[in-house]
């Protein structure tokens, strides 16, 4: 049975420990979100990669919240609060030089847009946006 498409904004929230052993949990939730939205298999893979890379850069922080805001044809993901200042530097600083393969270039490639939002002092939340491709 096929579930009806998302017709109004919905929120899915996850709080997870950070660590590669927890990546499968995040990927499965992302997969469920992608299925509800009708996101393409390759777009799902892109989103999983974006979140994985971001969490991999989160350093020694123990846990993180991930919020998935679903709207018709689009998902917005908030990851944070993150306390890793280099993430802000990497995402807000000057564009990477050609040929450099850092977090910013990865995100620029795999999501439609991203941004860094201030949370509490010294903390930030990273926003990732992905639209459902044309059908």
């Amino acid at each position: 049975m096929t579930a009806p498409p998302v017709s109004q904004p919905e929120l899915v929230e996850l709080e997870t420990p950070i660590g590669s052993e927890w990546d499968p949990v995040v990927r499965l939730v992302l997969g469920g979100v992608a299925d509800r939205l009708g996101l393409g298999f390759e777009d799902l893979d892109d989103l999983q990669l974006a979140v994985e890379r971001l969490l991999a850069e989160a350093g020694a922080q123990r846990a993180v919240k991930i919020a998935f805001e679903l709207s018709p044809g689009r998902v917005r993901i908030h990851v944070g609060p993150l306390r890793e200042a280099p993430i802000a530097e990497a995402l807000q600083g000057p564009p990477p030089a050609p040929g450099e393969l850092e977090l910013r270039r990865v995100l620029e490639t795999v999501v439609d847009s991203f941004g860094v939002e201030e949370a509490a002092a010294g903390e930030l939340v990273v926003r990732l946006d992905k639209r459902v491709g044309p059908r």
Partner: protein
Amino acid sequence: MTTSAPAPGSSGTPDRELLRRYHQHGDVSAREELVERHLPLVRSLARRYAGRGELIEDIEQVGAIGLIKAIDRYELDRDVALTTYATPNVVGEIKRHFRDRGWTIRIPRALQELNVKMSGAVERLTVRLGRSPTIAELAKELDATPEQVLEAVEAGSAYSPVSLSASPGNEEDLDLMEVIGTEDEGYARSEERASLEPALGELPEREQKILRMRFEEGLTQTQIAERVGLSQMHVSRLIRRSLESMREAMAE
């Protein structure tokens, strides 16, 4: 008695002579010739492990590492043919790969089989639809539920076709972990990021090419898959593992 007749089409130099040139004089070209000469053995052994959910080219890649190790560890005073010595090394490397990364981590057989079917289904649907299929479309194609599809994809992510110990193919033939670990000691985190490019250069040529196509040229995985002759899922795994390998190497 040692027999080491060269393969047809090779330089004609016996294995033993090439081994001597490599071990006694550091002749890297002799080592390369040995590797090239015995790749058919690796392919033959790798085929025995086909159909277990791992792509044959990945198994061959792992087997080739076993061959390289065998060449490096070969002792000239042993009266044994290189093929005889290399075979258990190649098989051992492949078995280790499956044990460490493969299906032996107790993935239910049904999920293994679904994962194996997945790659073909993604290719078929991509061609048929002219775009990447959704999870629901994949589930329908595979006569499975979306949950089963997601679990099967996740099961497949346990693989690691990229080996950091694979020789980068440069003249020094250093182990990649040694190269990166030595050079990056003491670097600050931000400096590590800036020096990812050298780490990229140490990946196998195919992985470098794929990463550049994805992150510099902006090609999709499907477009890359068409260009390099792999499946989209294989390209996905290579990208993910290459990035992870680079990050891990920089963190050491």
